[in-house]
Every structure is written in C-alpha cells, then in structure tokens.
C-alpha cells in the first residue's frame, strides 16, 4: 500500500500538458483510492487477527524473497510501466483474458530482478484455507468490541464513479472495513478483500485493483513521461549496511530534504501509533451513545494521513542530494525502530506526545536551515500545540477514570 502511495505521489499532473493533465490527475486519484482500499484491507486484517486471538501487526516483515507468497520485495519507486507491471501481476486473478498479460508478466519479472512476481491472491487462498480449517472455538466473538468498523473508519471515501449504481451494496469500489466474529464473516471478509484486488471471476468487476492498474498501464504506455517526477528509488534517511540480495537504497543527503524526510517519518510513526492505540481501545459497539477518547485518536489518525499527503507534496519537490543530478526525494515511509505500544493508557498518550515533541524539534531545524514552507510549518506546529492542549488533562490524570483508553 505504501508503495502505491509512493507511486501516486510521483505523478505530477501540473507538469502534464493539455488533455493529459486531467488523465494524470485521474491516475493519481485512482492509485490513491487503491491505496486507501488497501488500508481498508490492512484494517480488516487486524480484525481477522483479533478474532482468532492474534496480536495486531503493522510491520512489514522481512521475508525470504523466494517465498511462494511474497509478491515482490518492498520497493519505493516512481510509477513506470515496469512498476505497473509488477502491481498488475501481484493483483491479478488466477485466470485472465487480457491480451497483453504475457507482456506484462515478463516486464514484471524483469523489474523484479529476474524473479517472477507472485499473486497476492495465492496468499489469500492460503489464508482462506486456513480459516476454513480452524475450529469454531478459535473464533472470539467478543473481540468485535476491539475491532474496526466501517462507520468509524470509512471516512473521506470517494463516491462510486459515474456509470455505476450508487446503491450501498458492497461493490469493489468501496472501502472494506468489516468486523468479523465468526468463520462465516471472516471468510466473507477475506473473499471481499481478495475480490477487490483481483476481481470476480464470474462477473469481472470493472473496479478491481487489477483492472484499474491495467487500464492505467495501457494509457501510460502511450503517453509521454515528463509527468512522472524523477524520484529516487527507496530513499532512506539513515545509513544501512546492505545485505546481499537487498534492494539498493538512496541515501538522502541534502540537509533540508533529510529534515523533511525525517518529519515525514515522524508523522508516519505518529499515524501508526494513533492507529494502534485506537485499535487497542474498546470500540463503539460496547460504549453506546457516548463519544470516547478513541474518537480523538481516530480523528488524529485521519489528521496525520492528511499531513502525510501535504508533506509528500513538499518532499517530492526536494533534491535527494547536493549533486544537482535532478533526482528528487520521495516520502520514505521508514518504519520506526519499534511499533510496540506502551501497556498502560497513560503511557500510550505520552507516546503520542513524545512523537509530537520530536516532530517539533525537526520543524525547528527546518526553520533553522531555511527550508521554506513556513506557512505550513506554522500551521503544523499550531496543530501540534492544539493536540497537546487537548490531551493535557489526560496526561495530568494519574489514575484515569474507567473507560479511558
């Protein structure tokens, strides 16, 4: 999903000419929608983990790349026909009739250092098999109180495109966030997620991720490329000693760009922290009628998504180093050293506070180095302050009243 975001942010509609502008803007929007749907998948997967008693999981596992399941190594790269090919193959259904599929597959393999790209569908098939084999007792219906639901998380979703029925029946163009409490609901959720990716065999949905990527691929091939920013591949803020077989990374060395990237990472970390905290809190299904501090966490999570959008827009205009090579930085989405959430509620809120304070330090550095965007930095700092003021009473309260998350 993060890879899709990177790809979307690499598009620059403003630099396209004439009629292409609208097309490029549309592609960007469509890929962002796909990413948002992937986020829905991520959240639904957390629900699935919860229902069988597992822990939440936001990390990207390092996986042997030759595994049968992992589609392709995690790679942040600008959109290209090659990267599109990889996305298409990873999302494709088992059978497809599109004529250029062999061409796409071979392009994908080439882009994957010669290794074939796996279908994510295979992974889902395996998980579906697994869930079918579980005992009834393995499903914990009470966990629903701690799961994510569409009402709470389905914010800002775009309406279905023109030409489709606006009926609320679930179709592939909607955000899938479902609580699951049983085998039946778990399997239905898994199948819906899989179908959103690859489409439905009997009734080829127009809006599966597979179909949408293919449509973009076709147009992309025929268009010119200036509307894609020259973003570095896998930009990182920290030096890493590469292991054999690792993908190459691009170290961000321009001082200001580095600070922007660090700020981005910090807000990304805050997003994950808020998300995890919100999912660790009892949801609306048990607290009826009352708002809960969980609401502020959710507002915060969405708020951070908006800031990441804003920061990504700034970062993709920054140079990666001082060489004037023209290579630009991209949002690095580097994970923090730990995603573990403190055990106690007060600790969790303090963790958010600490991240915000860290973010403030980076902002001060950005100002010190004359990084521009002062209006936005002012606005962001004010927002930081407002959040801290709002949670100050929570932080002051040593013994939190019951029900406080």
């Amino acid at each position: 999903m993060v890879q899709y975001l990177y790809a979307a942010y690499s598009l620059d509609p403003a630099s396209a000419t004439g009629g292409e502008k609208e097309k490029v803007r549309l592609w960007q929007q469509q890929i962002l929608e796909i990413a948002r749907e992937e986020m829905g998948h991520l959240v639904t997967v957390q629900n699935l983990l919860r229902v069988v008693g597992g822990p939440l999981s936001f990390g990207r596992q390092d996986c042997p790349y030759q595994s049968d399941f992992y589609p392709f190594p995690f790679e942040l790269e600008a959109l290209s026909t090659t990267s599109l090919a990889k996305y298409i193959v990873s999302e494709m259904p088992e059978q497809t009739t599109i004529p250029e599929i062999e061409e796409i597959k071979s392009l994908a393999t080439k882009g994957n250092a010669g290794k074939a790209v796996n279908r994510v569908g295979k992974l889902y098939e395996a998980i579906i098999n697994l869930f079918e084999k579980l005992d009834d007792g393995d499903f914990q219906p009470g966990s629903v109180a701690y799961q994510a639901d569409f009402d709470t998380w389905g914010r800002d979703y775009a309406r279905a495109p023109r030409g489709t029925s606006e009926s609320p029946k679930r179709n592939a163009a909607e955000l899938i966030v479902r609580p699951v409490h049983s085998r039946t609901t778990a399997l239905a959720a898994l199948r819906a997620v899989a179908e959103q990716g690859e489409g439905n065999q009997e009734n080829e949905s127009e809006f599966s991720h597979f179909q949408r990527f293919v449509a973009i691929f076709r147009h992309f091939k025929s268009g010119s490329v200036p509307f894609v920013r020259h973003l570095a591949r896998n930009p990182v803020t920290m030096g890493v000693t590469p292991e054999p077989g690792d993908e190459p990374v691009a170290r961000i060395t321009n001082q200001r760009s580095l600070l922007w990237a660090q700020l981005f990472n910090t807000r990304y970390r805050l997003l994950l922290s808020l998300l995890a905290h919100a999912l660790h809190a009892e949801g609306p299904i048990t607290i009826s009628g009352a708002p809960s501090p969980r609401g502020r966490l959710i507002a915060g999570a969405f708020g951070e998504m908006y800031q990441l959008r804003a920061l990504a827009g700034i970062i993709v205009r920054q140079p990666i180093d001082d060489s004037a090579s023209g290579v630009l930085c991209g949002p690095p989405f580097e994970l923090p050293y730990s995603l573990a959430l403190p055990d106690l509620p007060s600790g969790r809120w303090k963790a958010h506070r600490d991240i915000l304070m860290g973010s403030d330090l980076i902002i001060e550095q950005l100002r010190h180095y004359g990084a521009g965007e002062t209006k936005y930095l002012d606005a962001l700092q004010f927002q930081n302050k407002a959040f801290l003021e709002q949670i100050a009473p929570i932080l002051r309260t040593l013994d939190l009243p019951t029900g406080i998350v």
Partner: protein
Amino acid sequence: MSLPNLLEIRLLPPMAIGRLGASDDPMDNYDVIVPDARRLGWREVKPALTLHVDVASGGISGKSIPNKLSFKDAKGFIRPLSPFLEVWVRFQEQPELVPLTLHHLTERGLKPSDIRWSVHVANHKAFRRTANAADKIECRIPEITDHQRHPLPGQCENFIKGATIPFGFVQYIQPTDAFPEIRFRFTPASGYVYAPEGSEPKSFHAEVYRKDGPWAGWPDPGGPLSTMPGGIYYGGDTGKSRGFLDDACDGIIDVELAVNGTKLSSYARVMAGPPAFAPDSFPIRRIFDELEMAMNGPQSDGGTNQDVQDIVRRAFESIRLMNTTVMNGNQVIGHGSNMTSQDSNDVNRYFAPIMAPSTVDNLAVQAIHEYVFAALESEVPPWFAQTFRRFNEIGDLTDTGRRRMPAMMRGADGRYLALTRRQLDIIRMASGLISLEQPAPTRATPPLP
C-alpha cells in the same frame, strides 16, 4: 471651469442588517479579524472607529475607538446595531464610485436638504399566516429632508386604536466639514414582544393587537400555504396562535437627488433581526453566498486553497459552538432535537446516529477541521471535494448520504445542508478537478467485436 456631472448615485451597502436591542446607546463599531491566517483559532473582536451621533442635532459630534467592547449597557440592555447607509456617487470622467460629500453638494449649489429620503418598513408575520391584509404592520415615511430622528411606528388596522409597534428610528445625519459624507442611520427596535389585549400570562412588553383580530387565536389550517417549517409562532404547538408579534421588520430606504433637472435615485434594503450572539463566528452558508451566486452564477472562475480554507474556517466556527454529540443523534438523554430525529419524524428513516457515535466529541470534530486546514496550508490541492453534498443530493438519507459535508446541519429545504453550487464549484476548482463527476475506470478487458 465646469464641475463634472453626477451620473448616478448608490446607497451602500445595498443590504444592511440592524440588530435589535433596547439600549438607548447604539452599539459601537468593532472589527473582527483573523489574528493569524495559518491557524483555526478565534477571530479577534476589537473595538473600532465609532461615529458618535448627537441625536438632537443629527450631526456627528465626534469619532473614537472605544476602550472596551460592551454589547450591553449598564442596565443590561443590549445595544442595538444601528447601521449607517452612505450615498456614493459616480462622476463623469471618473469611473469609480466615491462617497458623496457636503462639498460636492455645495459646489454645485445644492444643500443637504436637496437629498430626499423615504422609508418603508413592515412586519408581515401575522399576515403571512392569516392572509388578512389588515394584519400587515406598516410604517411609511414618505419624505425626510431634515436631520431629526424619526421614529418608525408600525401601524396595523387590527391593532387596538392608537397602538403601534415601534420599529426603531431613522435619521438623516447632518453632514459637516468634519464629517462631510452623506449618511442615513437605521436604528432597529428594542426587541420587545407584543400581544393581543388580555393575554395571560403577562410575558410580553405591551398589548397592541385586538383580542378579536384574526391573528389572536388563529387556527392553523395547515395545508400547502403553511410556512416551512410550520407552526413557528407562539402557540404553534397547539395549532392555535396566541397572537404574539415582535418588532423585527424589513424594508426599503429610497434616496433621491435632483441635479440639473435630472433625478438621481437609489435604494437599499434594511432588516432588523436578533443580535449575532457569537460575533467572532460566521455561518458556513451566508446571505452573501446567495447574493454572489445570484449575481455571478453557479460556476466559479477560480478557487484557491485560501477560498477553501475560508469555508473550512466557518465550518469550524459553527461546529465549535454546537454539541456535536447530541447533533449526531447519539442516545445521550433520549433522542434530542437534531436532524436524525427529523429524519425519523419527517420520512420514517429509521433513527440512527449519523457518524459513528464514539467519534463525534466536539473536540475530535474540531481537530479534524484543524488537520484539514493545516494540510491545505501546504498548498496540497483539496482532496475532499467529492465528500460534499451536492444540491440535488439532499434526498439521500443513507449512511453515506448523511455523512456528506456539511454534516448534521439543516438546509433551507429542511433536509441536510448543502453548500451553494458556487461554493462547491470553488472547492472543485481549487481541487484541480474538471468535474465533480469522475469517469468510471475503463474496462481492461476489450469489448467483444
């Protein structure tokens, strides 16, 4: 050397709002400013340059910036907002309008009394319901050329003999060398409530209406002529009016000046309504937006992030003063008075909160607006144009439909609020969208030959 001709006059502003209050001391001027455009905070309300009118002479005795903002006087009465109207003029050889002054008059051999004013204000609230023309409360002052303060007594055939409802005052301000502009001031009424003879309990200021008049005890027939909402008068819950009236009014002020045998004229509208009790906050959708759209059409020429931020700011200012938990339909204590109850009562939409109940605490809702506002400060184009309710989607009461923006608030049609088409078009333009409709992604599988 001949003086440039006066070609036209205008009375500005074309629509002035007075706000009721019983104090003899009109409200001072104040400014409302955004102290820092980068944040959503409170606008600052600061005393501003105030003109002091000497009511006896009709002239301005001085101007000053008050030390303190006082909406009420020492007795606790609200100080009425009493707007000035100014006469502006366009001269030959100068394309712009400028304020007409005493000097412009005298150098053309004219006097202030050559400017004639006439006033016509009215309150037709009873008439609107009873359809009885004798229920119209009217005040006409056909010609004012002096600088006295003229009261505006509202007269009605169905009033007790001799009774009137005072609608306030008007005064043609005497222009002087120190304050040479041509001004007219409308001072609204005290905000009193009036009733028919013999009304009990005595929860009103005075009895003015005949106890046997059609408005007293008017039985509401319902039907297609009803106002919407209906029954919004004292006694409305019983279907029978108690015959109460107020001293709000609206009307027209005309101004006329004869120059060289040509009569130049203009008019403006005035109205008197309740005070703006949160003067540092402004509504999302304003009369200004209606006028803009009526003048310039539903399509905008452009839209910037700042335009969108203005809308976000006003949305923030509204929700901030609103109990969003109750407005959302959370089952706090009973169902509460909110749109979700209306949905059930009006059309049997089953009662349910609009947004997930745990997410609507006022501070969380404020936060979302703040985050959006902050992100827009980076010039990232708005990403949320399609989350707004379009004008013809007010019928969509599904969960999706009710969650569109603006949320929880009522529109002029009684359903959920939609922005004006022009406001939404501004957001669309700022977002870089050609259209709010987006084409469906094309099918990847080629069509059959």
